[in-house]
């Protein structure tokens, strides 16, 4: 186990290094530069480039960046003056993570339940209802769900605050809006997987043994059917916890989401790189947790390979 973790850790480091290096080159290939604006003159551009070290050759900039990265220094934003990228992440990530955890918990609970209900009610109206919910959830873009929820439950009915982030009441609408897609996705996967499992021999055996339906569903079907859901849950968690541009914008939540978009728009190289590295590490960590979970849910999956 220790060897496995160590190996995974080294591979992860390599992955993050590759990711950062590729993005470092890619952002420089984007047309334009961080400083260009309506009023910039060549003399002032030269001052700015010297200030941020952009007058150095690209490989020098790269080595300096990697060197700083190894010390945990992500550099300063080029757009937000004197603002370290690590502070941007430290300030905004907690909000994104807060919203993300609520969403993942809520969406998993509802999505998996819907999937189970649909899977157990093959061909019955209940299954179609679950499918309809899933189709709506998949096809409605989040800016529509977000805006509609805000308009009706926020502005028209006044049940919840329109936007901002000041307490539990403020989290309800964005959590709902953000959950829709995940609920739909999870319920679809869960349903298919449940149907798969239902036809298996061991379910027939369990039934023949005379086990109660609840026990069959809970102990045998669910545990086997949930593996594909756990697989997708890793990347979904990483994506949702690190912030989403649309929902955070609509509900004015000070999360990380908008930095991805604004960073690229402003060609704020250090912000783009810092966020990419952070997201990469997060994604790798999430996948690692999923791998561990596999072993817990299904003991047949051993992390260290075949034991003698």
């Amino acid at each position, binding site marked *: 186990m220790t060897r496995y973790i160590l190996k995974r850790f080294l591979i992860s480091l390599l992955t993050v290094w590759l990711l950062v290096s590729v993005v470092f080159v890619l952002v420089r290939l*984007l*047309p*334009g*530069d961080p*400083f*260009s*604006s*309506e*009023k*910039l*003159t*060549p*003399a*002032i551009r030269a*001052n*700015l480039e*010297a*200030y*941020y070290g952009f007058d150095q050759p690209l490989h020098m900039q790269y080595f300096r960046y990697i060197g700083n990265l190894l010390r945990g220094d992500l550099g*300063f934003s080029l*757009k*937000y*003056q*004197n*603002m370290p990228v690590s502070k*941007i992440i430290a*300030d*905004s990530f907690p909000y994104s993570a807060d919203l993300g955890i609520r969403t993942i918990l809520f969406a998993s609970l509802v999505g998996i339940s819907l999937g189970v209900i649909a899977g157990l009610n093959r061909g019955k109206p209940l299954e179609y209802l679950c499918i309809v919910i899933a189709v709506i959830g998949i096809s409605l873009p989040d800016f529509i769900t977000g*805006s509609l929820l*805000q*308009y009706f439950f*926020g*502005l028209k009915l*006044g049940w919840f*605050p*329109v*936007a*901002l*982030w000041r307490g539990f009441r403020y989290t309800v609408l964005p959590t709902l809006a953000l959950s829709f897609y995940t609920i739909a996705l999870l319920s679809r996967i869960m349903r298919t997987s449940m149907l798969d499992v239902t036809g298996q021999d061991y379910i027939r055996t369990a039934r023949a043994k005379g086990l109660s339906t609840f026990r069959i569903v809970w102990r045998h079907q669910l545990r086997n059917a949930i593996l594909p859901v756990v697989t997708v849950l890793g990347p979904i968690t990483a994506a949702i916890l690190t912030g989403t541009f649309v929902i955070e*914008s*609509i*509900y*004015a939540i*000070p999360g990380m989401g*908008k930095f991805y978009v*604004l960073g690229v*728009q*402003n*060609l704020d190289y250090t912000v783009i790189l810092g966020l990419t590295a952070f997201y990469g590490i997060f994604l790798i960590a999430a996948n690692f947790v999923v791998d561990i979970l596999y072993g817990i849910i299904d003991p047949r999956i051993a992390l260290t390979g075949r034991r003698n």
Partner: protein
Amino acid sequence: MRKTLHNILAVIFLGLLAFLGLAISAPAAQREFTFSMAYEIPGLDPQKANSIPSAVVGTHILEGLVRVHDGKILPGMAERWEISEDGLVYTFHLRDALWNDGKPVTAHDFEYSFRRLLDPATAAEYAFAAYGIENGKAFNKGEITDPSLVGVKALDAKTFEIRLVEPMDYLLGYLQLMCFLPTRQDVVEHEKDAFATGAEHMVYNGPFVIKEWKHEQIMILEKNPRYWNSDAIKLDRAVIHQVHEQNTALNLFESGELDMVDIPSNLYEKYATEGKAKVSLTGADDWIKVNVRPDPKRPWLANKDFRKALAWAIDREEYLKISTKGLYIPNLRYVLPIVAGVEKHYAEEYPLEYYTAKADPEKARAHLKAAMDHLGIDDPAKISVTYLIQDQEECRLMAEALQDQIQRTLGISFNVQIVTRKQRFLQEGQADYELVYSGWGPDFDDPLTYIEIWGSDISHNNSGWGNKEFDDIVAASRKETDRGKRLALLFEAEKILLDEAPMIPLQLRRRAWMTQPGVSGIVRPFIGSDLDFVYATVEK
């Protein structure tokens, strides 16, 4: 014993009652003004600030030599000033004012701040604003390294002198720009990289101080009791929420969370009909810039008649109706009409309607024919131009309308090339375009801010157009000390520019906004900051 206990309890009870009473009556009616900004404030270091959100906050927490309110120049940190005969030396006499930490505001603070603005090591984007100061440009370009040669000097603790290269009769208004607001050497040196990144990492000499700054979320300003004119400030607090989405801001306004909100152009008509929308010019002046360099593949771009044909084929009223619901208005000349003239607005004293709001297809086709005759082209379909714009909904809508109007009227092919904003800057800077959607916002209240950027040696003028007569007139205007004569020269230059047509005027941008009942005294300036609530009040 029991009695004593009773007595103690009674005293505690009464004490609690009194405390509660105090707690309930204590907060007097607070005058609070709440609004939102679409973008986080990119920085509050006055010399390095380069954006409108920074200027909005900056002009409320800091005060320069003068304060400009509603277009009027009022004394600020300087209570009076003298200008030399030749208009080259300005002497400011500072009042007894304090920073919020109790230290006095001195002429040395201004000397430090102005030098810091020009120091190449600061890498201030707005350093160019101080190029009119003696040796300012040379110092910023690194041609001289001794900051004491720059024409700013603290003659004593209370007297500050600015020496100019050429007379700038608009200098006082220019000093409202955020880059000219003061800061203090000891604070900058103590805070280093943390300077101006948080409420406690800077000092304030303006009407408000920052009470709380949660980046990307909220900023709370509080009245500065040490501000010299704090009796005139009616607001107790201002609250700024970061709301990226315009519709969210509007919903927050409708639910009563915000006291003021900007109206997006697609909803402008609705609120205008309801009588709620207030409008004013933002100062932004947009045009099509033409790359007039001779190019054998596109010889028509260098032809003045061809450019005029485009200009007359455009129906400004129609495309603005389509793309902005009439929020933006046609510009029939070049310079923003509301910049200062001698007594009144420039356009009132020097009126000009060079183009019309509606298209003139006859004139457009006549110009096109002249151009084609000159170039020896028989069929307009052989002419094609490409119009470079950035990927914004508004720009796209405008470009599509222009494309339709020009193709319909002239029969040439008009292509639209959409790129990212940064790529647009890149291509524009490298003159890698045929036509480009461009524009300018004013830095000071004078026609020169628009005129000077077309000089043949100015980097912003990448159109390839240069005109000796134009350059000479602008140069002569810089030497002129009589404002009327100077503006008359600039008016001549404006007419040359329009006649030569290296650019085709499009529109003047306006903003629409509304406030809750009880909010008054809000001013929306068109230079530097776009919001002034210094003397505003909220009665609820």
